């Protein structure tokens, strides 16, 4: 039987069914219904077993609010903290208190809970007074045990509840404890959740597994991050289900309007299915270009709303001594939760249960009911913790996705968004535009202040509602822009306006919503005016600040930081450390909620910065953050939140900016959206004012609000330049300091790379021969078949011979081509794509019918030496018999012995069927006549034995030249000086193995040995692409053979290399020197966020190779092909496991980002080489593959 509710121990039924209990509830309709009624809201349930469950509508978003609320309950009930369990955001039983926003939990939603606890305590004391026969006044409570002051009988709360059912209607006016008697509240206590989180035993919503659970993934439309416009919900043309039909465990492909999802048994298959599913979408129309943010914000339709008007602004500005008009621009930001959103949904007989990390469980319940067409009562939302969200991320979106998929398949479905989806689709913290106009009179008094702000954001409806068309794609206009739009100063003539404006891209609230950008403008402008008036900026503010707590905080913070008054800006001076140092101040009180709003904690910052005048890098070295929070429930928690807000805000101000192309979000991972890292974290001096006699205020976000202005003011102090648009990235600082310079050093484009002549090494061979039919006919186009034999008995071969054959087969890389994708080794079936069609490689196991079991040695030798099959047909020269022919008889016999000793595998394969004329195999005879030179390798007596052994291995079975030697128009390897000088193979560049090598540190024997042996050479990089399986194959060979190959190949290097380490040092130095001027470029940002974790030479830790790109041959090549291909495809199968794997970035970075990154890598790591000229075209070609 399906349970009606899924929230087992936290359900209303369970809470009220554990024997004697006391419950405090509220009937929203005011009808006094009992707590069993599902329409009522429970605040507190205590039972005879000693459990105390307290319920709050707000949830813990990682801020520690669970602990602080428990402190409040423990305080009022005189219970030990650990005896209180908090149930947060429980839609089945708890109160609906709206979304967990604006740091309101303590300031607003904790009040009824506190009253409920006080009410329960009073009821319990009344019971105890009765039982003990003493007046209530004479009782005291210690740790939940009640007794008379001087008595010797004690009763625990649990005992008092035995057999009783006490139901109280919440009375919000219940008297609560006086602050003076607090012993739990106001004490710094450790958070209750951290031990389990550190041990790995905590269950986030991501960790929930319900029986029979499937895994779903969604496929989002191409209009990434947009939720309004005609095309939204109307763009799906169709899906091709056959494109995923072969994925194991595929359960369903689900579509509804623009909602597309897949469901599989296993998570990785769901991910694969979402990637592979072919979906046809209509192209989105041209969207506003957000690259020019100010223009886009101004162009968006808006309705002005006057928030405040005093005096006569226009007249006072017109008559003022100094008027100053300024515009401040705020970029789009992301919540950027570390864990992409996740949810699990399960259909029940009578509705649906959804486990979600939502910020607003009750709103989500309403959304789900609307989406699914169910009554609200049939939807249960169980809130579980998730990654911190700081506002509205995709937590609700993914809950709706899971609900749609679970209903479609009738089984529980877990959905987690990809990193790229979370980044692209989360409702952004919107870009914002603030225009300020103001005036000073002749005495330097600020007499007028006019402020107008535009905030293109709304509540961001849950995405599935919009994608399915359940909710209109016409955006609602939000009213959030008014938060903290009125500055905290008393200025005689003031006019404050908000331009209410709909979202351009999906945008909603993010920490310090609207207040942080508005304060950036207010507090930058105050600083600009102070400089204009030649008054110390702190002093200037204090003139207009009349709130005594604000004044006290500003003074205390300035004093704590050792603020030195500066009546006028000092000229910038480079200090001994080569940096420009500066200090800035800003102050705010965060006003949130519906206008005119509620004020949370007061906050002030003093910031110290150091600016590198060369690179433009800004370091925030120290933040002195003062805060007046009133009563602090958990001072440790307030301090932690303050630290977090300082760090996150610093990150936003210094580094963060969402990027767009054609209006859609292109910041899809941490490279394109970098956030602060440990080395950049400032020292923080938190000054928490002790105001325990004052009401508790929202503590979290307030500390972030002064950040941007304080930092901008400090940069102004350091550099004398005013920056009015964050983020303050190095490129912007350089542009501000030296506007005449180009943003980044411009490398001259190099000459075009030689054309990629062949897609496959033998491309062109056949087409050339079509016209050379005469030749073909002259060259014995038909050969006789050799009669099949019974498969030879493997016992006839000596084990040593078979073992030798094994090594030779490894050397020849036979398994690479003769094994299908995830197929049985050597059983053939790999489809080699060619311009002429697919060639299916044959089965090399000794199965008599489908393999080579019927091949005599004579037939085998003819194939290896002449390229003729047993049946007499010519083999396509994709099979490198022109090299294999160099093999000695003894080695060929050993290979034959080895192959015949393998387990036969029956594997029917489709015949290779090339179209006319390429199906005319006899033409190949002519090719052979022209280019095939049978015979073994002649020994060179002038060379060492090692060299000769190397020559035999390289030129014979190793067939290095098959890839590394250029081919003529007919696809044959060029001879003479062209040998091993590099070529293009299957879209990879096989680089020159001669003096033409572009490697910055020349190859020598030691490096070649290391590369072939371990897949990695210190001064050259790792084997990837087609070379990875080659090195993998070589693992079977003894060191001596690898050494011989290295000796032979090194002899082609001209001139002989000098001391590699000395050259390497100079190469590294050149790369290091190139880094500075590139700082702040898009390429550098992406490299730092996406690549440096493995390619930062300073961090040589972690599993796998850490290739230093300054030595990577591919960066120095004439063409970017190999670099681009590795970035697109990654290195999923390394040559040896120790190298680790590299992920593919094709689905995470846009073409423009890959191009920027490519140019950066070239300029940074191959600074002596010209910029590549054909990156875009090459990328397009490789994307098409």
């Amino acid at each position, binding site marked *: 039987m399906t349970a009606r509710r899924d929230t087992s121990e936290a359900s209303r039924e369970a809470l009220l069914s554990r024997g004697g209990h006391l419950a405090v509830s509220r009937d929203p309709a005011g009808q006094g219904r009992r707590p069993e009624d599902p329409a009522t809201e429970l605040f507190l349930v205590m039972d005879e077993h000693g459990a105390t469950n307290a319920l709050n509508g707000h949830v813990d978003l*990682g801020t520690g609010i669970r602990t602080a609320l428990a402190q409040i309950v423990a305080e009022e009930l005189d219970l030990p903290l650990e005896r209180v369990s908090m149930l947060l955001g429980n839609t089945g039983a708890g109160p609906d208190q709206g979304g967990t926003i604006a740091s309101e939990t303590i300031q607003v939603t904790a009040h009824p809970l506190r009253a409920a606890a006080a009410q329960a305590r009073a009821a319990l004391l009344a019971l105890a007074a009765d039982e003990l026969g003493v007046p209530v006044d004479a009782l005291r409570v210690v740790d939940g045990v009640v007794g008379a002051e001087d008595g010797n009988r004690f009763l625990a709360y649990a005992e008092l509840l035995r057999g009783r059912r006490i139901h109280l209607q919440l009375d919000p006016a219940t008297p609560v404890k006086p602050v003076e008697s607090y012993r739990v509240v106001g004490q710094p206590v450790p958070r209750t959740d*951290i*031990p389990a989180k550190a*041990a790995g*035993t905590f269950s986030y919503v991501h960790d929930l597994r319900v029986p029979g659970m499937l895994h779903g993934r969604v496929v989002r439309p191409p209009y990434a991050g947009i939720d309004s416009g005609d095309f939204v919900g109307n763009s799906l043309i169709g899906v091709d289900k056959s494109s995923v039909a072969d994925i194991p465990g595929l359960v369903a492909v689900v579509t509804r309007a623009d909602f597309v999802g897949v469901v599989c048994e296993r998570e990785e298959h769901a991910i694969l299915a979402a990637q592979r599913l072919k979906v046809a979408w209509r192209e989105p129309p041209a969207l506003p270009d957000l690259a020019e943010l100010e223009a886009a914000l101004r162009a968006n339709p808006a309705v002005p709303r006057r928030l405040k008007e005093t005096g006569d602004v226009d007249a006072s500005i017109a008559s003022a001594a100094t008027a100053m008009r300024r515009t401040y621009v705020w970029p789009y930001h992301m919540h950027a939760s570390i864990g992409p959103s996740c949810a699990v949904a399960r259909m029940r007989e009578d509705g649906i249960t959804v486990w979600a990390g939502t910020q607003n469980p009750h709103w989500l319940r309403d959304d789900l009911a609307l989406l699914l067409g169910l009554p609200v009562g049939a939807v249960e939302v169980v809130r579980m913790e998730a990654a911190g969200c700081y506002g509205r991320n995709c937590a609700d979106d993914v809950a709706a996705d899971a609900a749609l998929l679970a209903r479609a398949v009738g089984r529980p479905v877990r959905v987690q968004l990809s990193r790229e989806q979370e980044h692209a689709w989360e409702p952004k913290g919107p870009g914002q535009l603030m225009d300020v106009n103001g005036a000073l009179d002749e005495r330097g008094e600020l007499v007028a202040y006019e402020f107008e702000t535009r905030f293109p954001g709304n509540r961001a409806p849950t995405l599935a509602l919009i994608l399915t068309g359940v909710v209109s794609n016409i955006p609602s206009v939000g009213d959030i822009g008014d938060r903290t739009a009125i500055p905290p100063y008393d200025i005689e003539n003031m006019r404050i306006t908000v331009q209410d404006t709909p979202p351009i891209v999906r945008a909603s609230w993010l920490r310090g919503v609207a207040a942080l950008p508005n304060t950036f403008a207010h507090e930058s402008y105050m600083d600009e005016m102070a400089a204009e008036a030649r008054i110390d900026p702190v002093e200037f503010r204090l003139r207009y600040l009349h709130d005594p707590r604000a004044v006290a905080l500003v003074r205390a913070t300035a004093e704590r930081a050792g603020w030195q008054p500066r009546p006028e800006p000092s000229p910038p001076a480079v200090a001994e450390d080569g940096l420009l140092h500066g200090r800035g101040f800003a102050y705010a009180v965060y006003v949130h909620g519906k206008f005119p709003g509620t004020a949370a904690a007061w906050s002030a910052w003093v910031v110290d910065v150091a600016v590198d005048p060369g690179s433009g890098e800004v370091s925030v070295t120290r933040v002195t953050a003062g805060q007046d929070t009133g009563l602090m429930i958990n001072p440790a928690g307030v301090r932690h939140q303050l630290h977090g807000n300082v760090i996150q805000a610093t990150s936003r101000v210094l580094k963060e900016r969402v990027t767009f192309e054609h209006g859609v979000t292109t910041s899809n991972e941490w490279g394109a959206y970098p956030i602060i890292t440990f*080395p950049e974290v400032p020292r923080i001096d938190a000054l928490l004012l002790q105001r325990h006699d004052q009401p508790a205020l929202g503590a979290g976000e307030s500390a972030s609000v002064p950040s941007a202005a304080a930092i901008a003011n400090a940069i102004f102090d350091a550099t004398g330049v005013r920056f009015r648009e964050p983020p303050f990235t190095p490129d912007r600082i350089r542009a501000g300091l030296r506007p005449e310079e180009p943003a980044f050093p411009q490398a001259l484009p190099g000459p075009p790379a030689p054309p990629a002549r062949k897609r496959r090494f033998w491309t062109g061979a056949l087409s050339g021969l079509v016209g050379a039919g005469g030749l073909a006919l002259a060259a014995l186009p038909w050969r006789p078949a050799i009669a099949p034999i019974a498969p030879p008995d493997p016992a006839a071969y000596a084990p040593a011979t078979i073992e030798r054959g094994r090594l030779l087969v490894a050397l020849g890389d036979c398994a690479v081509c003769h094994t299908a994708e995830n197929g049985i080794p050597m059983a053939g079936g790999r489809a080699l794509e060619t311009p002429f069609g697919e060639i299916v490689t044959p089965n090399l196991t000794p199965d008599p019918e489908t393999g080579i079991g019927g091949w005599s040695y004579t037939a085998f030798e003819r194939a290896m030496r002449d390229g003729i099959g047993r049946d007499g047909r010519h083999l396509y020269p994709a099979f490198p018999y022109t090299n294999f022919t160099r093999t000695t008889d003894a080695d060929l016999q050993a290979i034959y012995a080895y192959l015949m000793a393998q387990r036969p595998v029956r594997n029917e394969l489709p015949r290779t069927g090339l179209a006319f004329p390429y199906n005319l195999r006899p033409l190949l005879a002519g090719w052979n006549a022209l280019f095939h030179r049978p015979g073994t390798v002649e020994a060179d007596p002038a060379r060492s034995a090692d060299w000769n052994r190397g020559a035999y291995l390289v030129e014979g079975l190793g067939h290095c030249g098959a890839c590394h030697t250029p081919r003529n128009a007919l696809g044959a390897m060029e001879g003479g000086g062209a040998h091993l000088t590099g070529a293009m193979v299957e879209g990879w560049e096989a680089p020159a193995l001669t003096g033409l090598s572009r490697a910055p540190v020349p190859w020598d024997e030691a490096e070649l040995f290391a590369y072939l042996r371990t897949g990695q050479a210190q001064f050259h990089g790792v084997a990837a692409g087609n070379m990875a399986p080659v090195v993998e194959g070589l693992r079977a060979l003894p060191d001596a053979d690898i050494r011989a190959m290295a000796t032979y190949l090194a002899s082609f290097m001209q001139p002989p290399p000098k001391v590699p380490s000395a050259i390497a040092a100079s190469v590294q130095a050149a790369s290091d020197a190139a880094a500075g001027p590139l700082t702040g470029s898009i390429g550098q940002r992406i490299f730092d966020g996406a690549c440096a974790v493995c390619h930062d030479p300073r961090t040589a830790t972690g*599993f*796998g190779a850490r290739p230093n790109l300054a030595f990577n041959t591919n960066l120095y090549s004439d063409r970017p092909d190999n670099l681009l291909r590795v970035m697109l495809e990654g290195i999923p199968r390394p040559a040896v496991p120790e190298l680790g794997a*590299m992920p593919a970035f094709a689905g995470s970075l846009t073409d423009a980002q890959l191009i920027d990154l490519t140019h950066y890598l070239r300029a940074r790591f191959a600074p002596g080489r010209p910029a590549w000229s054909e990156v875009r075209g090459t990328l397009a070609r490789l994307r098409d593959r």
Partner: protein
Amino acid sequence: MMQHPVIHLQVNGEAHALRLPADTRLLYVLRNDLSLNGPKFGCGLGECGACTVLMDGVAARSCILPLGLVEGREVVTLEGLADEHGLHPVQRAFVEEQAAQCGYCLNGMIMTAVALLERNPHPTDAQIRQSLRYNLCRCGAHIEILRAVRRAAGIPEPEVQE
């Protein structure tokens, strides 16, 4: 369908033989086949570090590691750090310093710190910051995390900043 060859690995001291495709990412195997919740999916690109595990004692990003590369190796996850004496000293230090807000990145922070102290028991503050450079935290718990790693390393706090 073809049966996949068995892949052997040790996880938290227990031997496992898994018949899964060699290209399955280790993270999904740990979470979905072995029910281990310590390692978290953060980015799938090895960028953020939330999925970090120890492979033969070295920090590794399990979201990008194909299972085939783990053959024959010893994997330790957050759950496997504790021993009969209780939590690992690094875990204890994180609890004592309250070094988490939402805690989603915590796995990566602890595992990376364990690996750091394993190879360098007495790191400088700069070395700690550098070794955690590519572990991202969005809540801003950095100060507490740095204190926790210093505590685990037995480095006294240079000064009380409050």
